[in-house]
């Protein structure tokens, strides 16, 4: 008699991949190092207010930890995007991807597993982030607000966007090095446009025929496009809206982030199907 077992469902497969991914992130030292870097950057931002208070003796703040939290989350999100890209490219480079697809794994369950695993690692890092902010609050006397806690919780959705973005860029590459370089290049372009636009705005223009004007207007249009393309801008938008108590904007930002996350996951799965699971040169 032949025993047959039903193939596990797509979500079950994705959760197995996610568990493996999350365990790798939690057991590796890289995540802890990234959290430390994120918190050093956050403290550095907080020091601006601390110094202003120490020098002036007086300071008025609605949410002292708002800017620090944004920076910390951006650094963690950047790390997650790189991790997602490295992990995805490595799966192909060492042949894991091919082995996985001999089993019940398909493109969408693989991408969902990758994103879900790193997102679980991000969620696991949130209590640690919060604990450090509690310590900073006790040391400085600056008040922690409920908006900060809400920002932490709601940052999960835009974090999924950045992880999905990393997977999307790496899913078609054959080597880890290529994936990382591609991600760095895309991020550099996204940040570079914003930086260049802000730089051009500083150029004094007194002549209506100045060549700076068309450049400025072009960069303004590109900057507007980048606002919708950059996964980091979604994170910034949601956290900033919650910090300001602009709940409508926060909900809209969350909706847009959810849509973008779904789009990058589907695109990554489609690209993976098109590209295939073989290693390069096979």
């Amino acid at each position, binding site marked *: 008699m032949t025993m047959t077992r039903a193939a596990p469902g797509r979500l079950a497969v994705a959760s197995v991949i996610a568990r493996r991914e999350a365990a790798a992130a939690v*057991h590796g*030292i890289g*995540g*802890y*190092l990234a*959290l*430390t870097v994120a*918190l*050093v950057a*956050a*403290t550095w931002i*907080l*020091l601006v207010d*601390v*110094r202003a*208070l*120490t020098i*002036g*003796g*007086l*300071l*008025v*703040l*609605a949410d*002292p930890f708002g800017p620090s939290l944004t920076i910390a989350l951006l650094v963690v999100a950047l790390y997650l995007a790189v991790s997602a890209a490295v992990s995805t490219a490595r799966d192909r480079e060492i042949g894991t991807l091919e082995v996985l697809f001999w089993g019940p794994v398909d493109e969408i369950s693989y991408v969902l597993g990758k994103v879900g695993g790193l997102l679980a690692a991000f969620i696991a*890092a949130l209590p*640690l982030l919060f*604990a*450090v902010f509690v*310590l*900073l609050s006790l*040391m*400085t*006397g*600056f*008040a922690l607000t409920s908006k900060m806690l809400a920002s932490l919780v709601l940052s999960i959705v835009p974090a999924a966007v950045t992880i999905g973005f990393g997977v999307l860029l790496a899913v078609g590459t054959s080597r880890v090095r290529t994936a990382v370089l591609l991600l760095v290049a895309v991020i550099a372009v996204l940040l570079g446009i914003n930086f260049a636009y802000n730089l051009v705005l500083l150029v004094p*223009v*007194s*002549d*209506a*025929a*100045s*060549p700076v*004007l*068309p*450049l400025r*207007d*072009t960069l*303004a*249009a*590109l900057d*507007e496009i980048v606002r919708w393309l950059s996964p980091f801008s979604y994170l910034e938008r949601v956290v900033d*809206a919650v910090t*300001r*108590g*602009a*709940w*409508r*904007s926060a909900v809209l930002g969350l909706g847009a982030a959810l849509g973008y996350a779904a789009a990058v996951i589907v695109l990554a799965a489609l690209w993976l199907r098109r590209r295939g699971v073989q290693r390069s040169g096979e």
Partner: protein
Amino acid sequence: MNMPKGFRIPTLILLAALCSGAATAAQADEQLVYRPLVTDGTEYRRVAYPKEAGTLLVLASSEVVFEAYRVPVSYWPITREYLADFTAGTAPVEGTVEIVDSAGSVTTIEPVPYLTWHADGVGAGPMKLISGEETQAFYDDYVAKARDAAEKIKEYQRIVAERQAAVEAWLKIAAERPPTLPKPPPELTIAEPEPYRAYASEPRISAVTALPEGRYTVQLRGADGDIVAGSERVLVSFAPRAEAVGYVLRPEDRWTRPLVTFAPDETVYTTGKTDLFLQPVPVAEYEANQFTRLFRPQSVEATDPSLTVWVPRPQDRELVAGAELALSAEGADLGALAQTPYRVSQLPGAARGYEIEEFTPLAGAALEPDFVAMRLTQDVEATEVALTTDGAPLPGSERQIRSVTPPSGALLFLPALLPLAIGVALRLRRRGRR
């Protein structure tokens, strides 16, 4: 034409830039431009609305003067604005201003005389719009008072000059050492008249109205009974989303560098090393997108529609007049502080310091206090303050005050090492298990 792949995107950007540059050469075209006199609650300004500027914005329940002109409009690429040219001194377009509300009912705004009134002087204190039948009488009264004040100053200056001449004459006599020296001229006993600071513009006649919050259409009906072409424009009258009481905070050791707290959810942090002077200010919260465009309707800043801005409303200062600052700590009442006038006096000597002391007005003297505030001394351990009238707190006047002693910068970085410490500990533990 075949183009290398890598050059396509830069070429597209360049083309877009050139197209954008071509837009700069746009010729001025004549159009009907509304130029209402609007207020932000503090001052009145004329704001030009070419059709490209979009919806006209006014503060709800504030008086607005509507005027429209037919003038050339051209694009100014530097500020990315369409600018109307009023330099030719064109007269306003003749016609009757009509306001159509969302229900479709039309209100005709009849022209009335109006003037702008600066009670505390130009650039000092809030501006007001005086309109209606009493405008001319108001202006005549202003002119009479201003002339009277000018006459008094002139008379005072004449007396001072006469006395000065008498003193100089006496000094000449005294220099010759006569056997009998006449008495010197007496000291001046009359006080210098207070300068008249107020200013009123000359009355003009235009359509003046105050609109409740809502969305309207403004249009101009010509003498022929038809709507003037291009005069139909959307008008939004917006009201504050919330009202509260803010404070101007002056530390005793930096009184010229005050901080403000307008939003009620803000916390005041202090190191507790100096006294604080709290000046209450009525404030209102507006949608930033609308408020920032009141005076700059073509601003290119992409403001988040949910962003709000708290602005002072000096015209409502009567709301906080006579109110007290109630102090409490962890719910325990610590008393109340009254609003007191203060004057800053320079200390003599090399230290070049100053002292903030209570101001006592002298009869007949023109001296005024530098500010009116409530002094929160550093020894008072209040953690909450609120402005009260008859014991009841004014809405939105509550603030938390936190006296803190932040540690040095290096110490603050210690908590950031916590994740690394946990990561290393977990790794060592796993290695130990193996």
